[in-house]
């Protein structure tokens, strides 16, 4: 099994990354240098004004280390890859399947089922652990709505019907999301998703963590030779990683949302770690970003049992396993896509 390696997140503005033998050297603006052996990395993520030498980029491409560039606030800019990896037959099969409405709807349905079942698990867990501090009734009612959605997803649906189900479930889930925020509810208010830019702290955190998730999923898809742009649920739109968005669905609640909630509930991020612009847009400061990145890395190292393979593995490896399972499904090695279910 592939090992879970580290992702090097570089967020110090003005850093310069270069290659020295088998090491990545990070030189910060004040001249300080840090070295990281490349074989312990599977990704480099640069935030904002961070430069990389072409030789480092080439070496990373050669070693299969994904390098991505994001704005300082975490919006995806670009990524650098080596020659297209993997199997052209697989990608052609992917395109054929994406062109076929019925097959697309089947995979989309599996992704949505994964998303809803996992959102439901997050809500249930909250009712179980914090039943006395939340509006139990509202949460249980939402669990009921999600149950209803999953029931209706048990039979084959048209793509648009499946999408409708997803929207309904997402609305229900986010309508009670603020219930799961247990600390400083007056500061960490949440009345629904908003983005580009986020206008409250919770959305700012959610958007940022979704970006981290997208980066990792995209890398996993590319590593097995799938085209991250050609999705089944998220149809082609230039520049949008449709397939990465599809596969993110099953992880949003259990990985991203739960991380954000625990950062808020354990007081690891505070109000003063965020900056509010004139426009109302909210950004996090450097220190907060570091806290979030560390939390994300820790989550990926935590161990889970993969429900389909019944193997223990680091959570971060589940992305790779899901990408492989999807590839197997596309090549008809499996009779469907088994989403990851969290317990």
């Amino acid at each position, binding site marked *: *099994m*592939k090992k879970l390696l580290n992702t090097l997140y570089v967020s110090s503005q003005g850093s310069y990354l270069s290659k020295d033998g088998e090491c990545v050297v990070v030189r910060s603006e004040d001249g300080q240098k840090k070295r990281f052996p490349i074989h312990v990395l599977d990704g480099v993520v640069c935030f904002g004004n961070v430069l990389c030498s072409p030789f480092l980029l080439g070496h990373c491409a050669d070693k299969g280390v994904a390098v991505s560039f994001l704005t300082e606030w975490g919006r995806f800019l670009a990524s650098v890859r080596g020659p297209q990896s*993997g*199997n052209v*037959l*697989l990608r052609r099969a992917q395109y054929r399947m994406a062109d076929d409405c019925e097959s697309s709807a089947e995979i989309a349905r*599996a992704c949505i*089922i994964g998303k809803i*079942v996992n959102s439901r698990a997050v809500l249930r867990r909250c009712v179980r652990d914090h039943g006395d501090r939340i509006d139990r009734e509202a949460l249980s009612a939402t669990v009921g709505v999600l149950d209803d959605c*999953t*029931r209706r*997803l*048990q039979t084959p649906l048209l793509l648009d019907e499946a999408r409708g189900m997803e929207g309904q479930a997402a609305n229900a889930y986010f309508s009670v999301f603020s219930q799961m925020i247990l600390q400083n509810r007056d500061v960490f208010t949440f009345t629904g998703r908003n983005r580009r830019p986020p206008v409250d702290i919770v959305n700012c955190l959610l958007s940022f963590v979704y970006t981290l998730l997208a980066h990792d999923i995209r890398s996993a898809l590319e590593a097995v030779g799938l085209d991250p742009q050609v999705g089944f649920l998220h149809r082609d739109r230039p520049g949008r990683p449709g397939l990465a968005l599809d596969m993110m669905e099953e992880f949003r609640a259990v990985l991203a949302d739960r991380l954000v909630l625990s950062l808020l509930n354990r007081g690891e991020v505070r109000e003063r770690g965020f900056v509010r612009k004139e426009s109302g847009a909210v950004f996090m400061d450097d220190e907060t970003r570091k806290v979030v990145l560390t939390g994300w890395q820790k989550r990926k190292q935590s161990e889970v049992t993969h*429900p*389909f*393979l*019944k193997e223990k593995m680091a959570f971060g490896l589940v992305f790779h396993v899901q990408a*492989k*399972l999807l590839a*197997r*499904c596309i*090549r008809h*090695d*499996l*009779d*469907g*896509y*088994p*989403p990851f*279910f969290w317990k």
Partner: protein
Amino acid sequence: MPNTLPLSALQHYMYCPRQCALIHVEKVWVENRFTAEGRLLHLRADSGVPGRRGGIAEDRAVPLRSDRLGLYGIADVVEMRPNSTGQDVPYPVEYKRGQPKVDACDRVQVCAQAMCLEEMLGVRIEQGAIFYGKPRRREIVLLDTDLRELVERICADIHVMVEERRVPDAEYGPACRGCSLKSECMPKTTKRVAQYIKKYLES
């Protein structure tokens, strides 16, 4: 033959047809201890130069090809040994690090090498050998009709499989344990995704 395949495909196929398909259809390759050792061993062997041993000329890392079988590859060692009529005939010797095996996979490899040499040089080869590293002993391989037919049959099967780009289903068995492609193959996953999803939906 529309496609030439490396000689090693024969051994992959005999080990597991799915492994062979993953390598030669899906182009999947994962290195483990055994493949790494084998690669290093050959790196050293392949740097060898022609020489003589005990009056017998030998050539190392000999490129081979058969258009009829659709194979190409490299023989570890080809000796020139006189046959019954006193004529020097190539004699392929394959080096293996481990123990002699009970199944035919090593013998198939030597036979396929010999059949390549026969086609390239227009000669008839009756014998080859396998040198096993563990007992440090040579086993003679008689290239009889049965073995040759086996080689032909396996070659034909592999070519059909690769042409059709077919990857056989996994069958979990003892061979899976030592297989470097296990994590790619996922031999325990069965085609029962619908049941798996149903179970979690209802929980």
